[in-house]
């Protein structure tokens, strides 16, 4: 039953999808063993060493990420004698479950991943997360606007190390077969492309509405197109969604759903699990496109036998613009992962975060395609052409809106996703979505 819980508990998007295999890590055990031996060996040496031990949980539990982080930790230990880093490389879902439990008992690892938004706000309110604002002002400066999602009232509580954006991944071959020469830029063009694909006997779009959040991303984007940045920023803090642009966002989405562009059985389709998932359908060329984040090429590689995913046929275009919307047509929806220190972590934790965000570590991170680096010095190291395109789009966007469900926290975000999934099923109106969010937020 625990396995069942893990299986479904996916509010997650940002994951290293291939890293699904359960692995509680020989590394962690080894590190512990080494630490114990070291302690037993002799406490005479070490000069200014105060014997600080940092526990570090991350989700890169397959190579090259796993080996890379071991190296990063070893380098830091060498440069800071007396500091020991105990790594737990966990499968993503496993890590989330354990983190939840750790937060409830207050026994958090020293260095851990924060996804920002409402979740972070809860942790900060409970006094679990360290305020980094005065500790690392320069690093915060380097990361730039990406850090917004991890700030509360102007204070910074975590440093994003990978931030990606959501857009349409498509199969260039299938688009060609349907006679689509240019990726759609407006909703009308998207409708036309859907029709052209249908006429060519191709299922246009896959969506993992069974997991709800992939469906919700459509609404997030239409809201991003319909609502101005000030309205959105206001909504994130006040949780007030009475602005008519939110209903308009639902209407745009309803119109799209009514053209029946989605794969057969999309209401029960999972996001990423198996060849019949939304990502699997795109990877195996059953559908022409899917709205997904920067993780998509990696997910698709894991879902094909040759580990190539769509390979050369992979294309990407941003979410289309909406006629008459007040939102910035270039604004992007995205999110990512950040490193945070527990409130009670030893002071050396801050130095370790600085190390993790350094030019050198971020460059190595980018070279291994582990994500989209936030330190601009590492931008050139992103080798995958599709990811490089995406990075360019992210950096040219006027702002990157954090996924609404993350931004609003799991309660309001969850209510929002549930209602949007009902809208996909034709059982909720655009007004219902707004009402459900307001009800969950207590602002109705």
């Amino acid at each position: 039953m625990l396995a069942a819980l893990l299986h479904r508990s996916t509010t997650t998007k940002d994951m290293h999808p291939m890293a699904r295999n359960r692995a509680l890590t020989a590394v962690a055990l080894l590190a512990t063993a080494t630490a114990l031996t070291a302690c037993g060996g002799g406490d005479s040496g070490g000069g200014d060493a105060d014997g600080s031990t940092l526990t570090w949980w991350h989700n890169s539990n397959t190579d090259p990420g796993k080996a890379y982080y071991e190296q990063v930790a070893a380098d830091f230990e060498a440069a800071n004698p007396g500091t020991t880093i105990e790594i737990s490389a966990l499968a993503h879902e496993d890590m989330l479950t354990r983190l939840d439990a750790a937060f409830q008992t207050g026994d958090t690892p020293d260095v851990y991943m924060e996804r920002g938004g409402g979740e972070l706000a809860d942790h900060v309110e409970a006094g679990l997360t360290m305020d980094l604002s005065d500790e690392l002002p320069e690093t915060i400066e380097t990361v730039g606007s990406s850090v917004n999602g991890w700030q509360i009232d102007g204070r910074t509580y975590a440093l994003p190390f990978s931030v990606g954006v959501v857009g349409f991944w498509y199969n260039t071959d299938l688009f060609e077969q349907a006679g689509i020469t240019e990726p759609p830029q407006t909703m009308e063009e998207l409708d036309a492309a859907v029709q052209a694909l249908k006429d060519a006997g191709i299922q246009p779009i896959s969506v993992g509405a069974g997991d709800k959040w992939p469906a919700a991303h459509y609404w997030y984007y239409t809201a991003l197109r319909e609502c101005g940045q000030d309205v959105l920023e206001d909504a994130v803090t006040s949780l007030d969604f009475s602005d008519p642009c939110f209903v308009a966002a639902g209407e745009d989405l309803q119109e799209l759903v009514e053209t029946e562009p989605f794969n057969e059985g999309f209401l029960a389709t999972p996001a990423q699990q198996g060849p019949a998932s939304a990502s699997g359908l795109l990877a195996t060329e059953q559908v022409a496109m899917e709205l997904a984040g920067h993780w998509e090429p990696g997910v698709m590689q894991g879902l094909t036998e040759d580990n190539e995913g769509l390979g050369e046929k992979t294309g990407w275009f941003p979410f289309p613009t909406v006629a008459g919307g007040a939102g910035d047509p270039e604004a992007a929806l995205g999110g990512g992962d950040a490193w945070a220190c527990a409130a009670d972590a030893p002071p050396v934790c801050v130095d370790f975060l600085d190390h993790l965000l350094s030019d050198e570590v971020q460059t190595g991170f980018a070279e291994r395609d582990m994500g989209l680096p936030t330190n601009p010095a590492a931008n050139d190291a992103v080798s995958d052409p599709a990811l490089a395109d995406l990075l360019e789009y992210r950096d040219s966007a006027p702002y990157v809106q954090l996924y609404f469900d993350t931004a609003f926290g799991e309660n309001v975000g969850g209510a929002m996703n549930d209602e949007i999934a009902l809208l996909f099923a034709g059982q909720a109106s655009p007004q219902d979505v707004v009402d459900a969010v307001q009800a969950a937020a207590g602002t109705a």
Partner: protein
Amino acid sequence: MTPRPTGADVAASPRGAAGAADRPDRSAAPARPSGGGRRRSSSRLSARTRTRLEIAFFTGPALVLLGLFIVVPVLQAVRYSVFDWNGLGPLDDFVGLDNYARALGDTVFTGAVVNNFVIIALSIAIQLPLGLAIALLLNRDIRGRGFLRVVIFMPYVLAEVVAGVVWVLLLQPNGLVDAVVEGVGLGGLTQLWLGDPDIALGTVMVVLTWKYLGLAVILFLAGLQGVPEDVYEAAQLDGASWWQVQRRVTIPLLGPTIRTWGFLSMIGSLQLFDMVWILTGGGPANSTVTMAIYLINQGTERGLYGYASAVAVLLFVISLVLAVLYQTFVLRRDNEVAPKPRRAAR
């Protein structure tokens, strides 16, 4: 042909002699209890203490576990349920019964309650006749009986998660089930088995029947072993047909087993979680959500631990009330199998 012994032979037979030899033993027997009685009375107090110690020793660990893992969590849930609490930090936002009112007013929760009751009703309505028929069949002396029993029981042994994942793969659009339906020329009948809100619950019921029918069959078969042969013989001597024997003799004698199975089935249906979680996660559009799934969604997925605790308490109360009602009205007769003499005299 052996000649029958005459009267004189019988009297002189070893059996007769043995019978006579028994007698002295029997007459000596009453002496024994008095000796034992004396010994017992001399140590009565310590014996009683010892019995108590024994009881404490053997039930103690179980009681501690029961208290620690059942009673305490239930009481904790009751406590959490009157707070608005996200699982982090102190319990300081007391909301009284608001959480309960909200749950009972939420159409998704009331829908879940309805789904649970539909599952209880359908489980019993489908599995009882089917399980009984299969058990009666497998109780006959047919070829490959052992093998068939294993086949029927196999799904019950499989882990829910494993079986669930296999079914998800079979039932997906253009999956094996669709291929089989098309293969036999019924292409028009293929469905979005798990993707259509109107039929997903039906699909779930089919999988549940497949999964849990084995338990019913194995229990009924065990019950059939307890039906004494001589009743069948008597019925056959009275000229009853096979059908009559089953209807008038076997099934009534199987009553206690059937009623116990019904109880297990009902409780299982009320708490149903894992199979549905794997198959549909409660979807599409909440069409297969059960109380336990609603509880997990609100608790661990949305972080509403106070509210989810209220839902847990409601689930507990509903289960308890149904269990007590069932015990009182259905299982009562079975609990009185050996009535006390004074009641019989009344």
